[in-house]
């Protein structure tokens, strides 16, 4: 045990300020992705009190859709169209495809169980998650598809290269275009979501349905449609995150949804399940924790550290940082 502690301190010293900045940078990027996925979890939980285990796999499908589009367009080395429209198409495919998938899952797997005991849709969610993961594994032969064979980011790749150029450096560690892009896009989507929820009529309907579904439907709100739209929005965000994950890290594989989903869910819980700002904060927090854990403690312990944090929150602050106590109506 002390050996571990000493090695942590050694690592901190070894990495120094530059290293710390790199970890911070990585954590923010990763955290933005987790935040987007966590938003999906928190929105669905807020409106249906359902843990959508399959959400992480929707994210994974989005990543694959983006990758698929890129391949069809000739890949990063021989793009048939310019880089900007290519990326736009990737996003369109990833987001739209994930959105449709999310709506379909809600419609066929969860809606029949609207009035069933709480455990039923949870089990179905596991079934859906398992189905998606293994289907993709089957269809991709379990490969971990990397964008690397396309030499992403290597110089000489005229099309995609610029995406990985360094914009500025701090203490010798660079921040690249793609990293800024990910954080900026995530921020943009989150702001859009907050505006949607707080300023539009739909947002009002959403909040009403989340508060009391029966009353909302009696007030003339089509709750089925609101719920479907919620799943759509949640899945679209996850799809965007998936595409960005692929661009940023250059990999997609069938199991990525499970791990990311687990951590994003932890983020949602830590931030306060049901709270949209909570999911954002939680996501960033988890991203930073993971990044710094990998850097200072060692990759194999990162997951355990995050698990430890989850347990701590469960014990001492189950409503999360920004969540509110649920009042039980009797």
């Amino acid at each position, binding site marked *: 045990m002390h050996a571990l502690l000493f090695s942590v301190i050694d690592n901190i010293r070894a990495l120094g300020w530059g290293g710390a900045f790199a970890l911070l940078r990585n954590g923010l990027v990763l955290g933005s992705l987790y935040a987007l996925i966590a938003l999906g979890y928190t929105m669905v939980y807020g409106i249906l009190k359902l843990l959508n285990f399959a959400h992480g796999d929707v994210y994974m499908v989005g990543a694959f859709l983006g990758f698929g589009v890129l391949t069809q367009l000739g890949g990063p080395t021989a793009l048939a169209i310019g880089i900007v429209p290519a990326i736009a198409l990737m996003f369109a495919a990833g987001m739209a495809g994930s959105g449709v998938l999310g709506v379909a899952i809600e419609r066929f797997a969860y809606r*029949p169980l609207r009035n069933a005991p709480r455990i039923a849709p949870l089990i179905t969610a596991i079934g859906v998650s398992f189905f998606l993961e293994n289907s993709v594994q089957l269809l991709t032969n379990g490969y971990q598809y990397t964008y690397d064979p396309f030499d992403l980011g290597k110089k000489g790749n005229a099309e995609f290269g610029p995406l990985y150029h360094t914009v500025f450096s701090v203490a010798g560690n660079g921040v690249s275009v793609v990293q800024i892009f990910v954080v900026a896009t995530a921020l943009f989507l989150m702001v859009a979501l907050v505006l949607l929820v707080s300023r539009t009529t739909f947002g009002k309907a959403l909040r009403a349905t989340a508060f009391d579904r029966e009353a909302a439907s009696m007030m003339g709100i089509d709750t089925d449609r609101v719920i479907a739209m919620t799943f759509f929005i949640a899945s679209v965000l996850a799809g965007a995150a998936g595409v960005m994950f692929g661009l940023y890290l250059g990999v997609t594989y069938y199991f990525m949804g499970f791990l990311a989903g687990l951590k994003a869910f932890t983020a949602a819980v830590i931030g306060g399940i049901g709270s949209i700002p909570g999911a954002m904060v939680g996501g960033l927090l988890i991203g930073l924790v993971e990044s710094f854990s990998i850097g200072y403690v060692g990759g194999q312990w990162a997951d355990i550290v995050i698990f430890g944090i989850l347990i701590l929150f469960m014990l001492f602050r189950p409503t999360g940082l920004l969540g509110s106590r649920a009042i039980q109506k009797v």
Partner: protein
Amino acid sequence: MSDDPHTPLPEPSDAADETRIGVDSWVAEAEGRQARKRGFFGPAARGWDASPDPVKLFLFIAFAATLPFWLSEGDLFVYGLFTLLYATLGLGLNVVVGFAGLLDLGYVAYFGIGAYGYALVSSPHYGIHWPSLASLPAVAVFTGLIGLGLGLTSRRLIGDYFAIVTLFFLQAFLVFTNTANPVIHGTGLTGGSSGIGNVDPLKFFGYALTTTKQQYYFFLIVLSLATAGLYFANRSRTGRAWRALREDPLAAEVMSIPVNRLKRLAILMGAALAGLCGAIFAAIQLAVTSSNFTLNVLIVMFAVVILGGMGSIAGPILGAIVINVSLQFLQPQNDHPDIKRWLFYGAIALFIALMKPWYRAVVVLVGTIAFGFAVHAIVSATTAASWTAGNAADAGSASMGKHIAGWVIIPVGHGNFDTIAYIVLVAAVCVVRSVSGWWRALALIPTLYMTAVVWESVLAPSPAVTAEILFGVLLIVIMTVRPQGLIGTARVEIV
């Protein structure tokens, strides 16, 4: 403001001494009449319901005890021992999921902890060799306490949080045993990805359980004891409290039932049973690796409980039999390609046959066959030969395997076909679910054909992953169509 409060009110109708119209005894018996099971399995189901529970257990044990006499050792291991293992694990999971209503997704981690725990005290890893009489209970208790610890963290034990905490616990367990593997007392605690080997077999009073037959009988005893124990627990004050808390936790709490304490008890018992299974498993495999405790195994356990019927005791046993036998039968190494093919198409035929009314079923059956031939003819005539050039997987020389390629489309070399066909199939299933009546029958025809196409070209060639996909689908289908499983009783829920 009020009327004369002394208006004489009708005499309150008193007890049902005499049978009167509309009075309840007839209504009550109507329930019984409707519940009388009919249909093909009717007499069997009624016989099953009518026989007292100890008889059912005895019949099962008697049958199971005969297995070693007519199965080969290899088959006994795969079909017998593993079924018992899954049945016992299912019983334990049922305590947590079925009795207490908690989704414990880390359940397979308890199985693993039991296995590793036993291995650590019964192997050269640290040179500790406890006698089995001590190690088995110790490991079970230890695992139970870990489960209890997890339960204590989710203070209000709200099901959703507990699910995530336990799932993450499983992940942490896998990472811990596989990669983290901290060094304690000189060697890695868990042996990393190669695990711990040279584990001692079970030894009782100098008698070691080394053959499959011995291990099988031992496990059968364990399963029987566990079944009886849980049966008695269910029919006691604790069992009633569990069922009450499953029905309505708030009302149960107000009716003097300490809900959280009972949930923790269920978690403890479930984890302990899983730990015990893990220890026995390690003693049978004579080694422990974390690959035995993955998410895939968890899904099988859940499928066993859900298919059999949550909350019932016989349910997991039946579920284990059905699932393990199917699973093992479909493994690549137990290859019976022809039978597998017959099973698949037989299942489709059965599905069609269950449609009512019968003429609709006939239309669908004939339509699907005709549709298939039509499509095949069109495709062979109009496109390149490679589109229908493929052979059915594992066709061998079996007659059906050869001919099926003349009905379904199995292309060779068209990479995207798999993905597109798969997506089309999923979409088609969604369409079928959204319409009803004759539209559904019509939509079923191309859907069933697509199912066969996808099966032959995509799924059958990869049986391992296909099994996992089928498990996922099984969970979805059961929860949406028949949530009580095969032998559970349908529950009435307050809306």
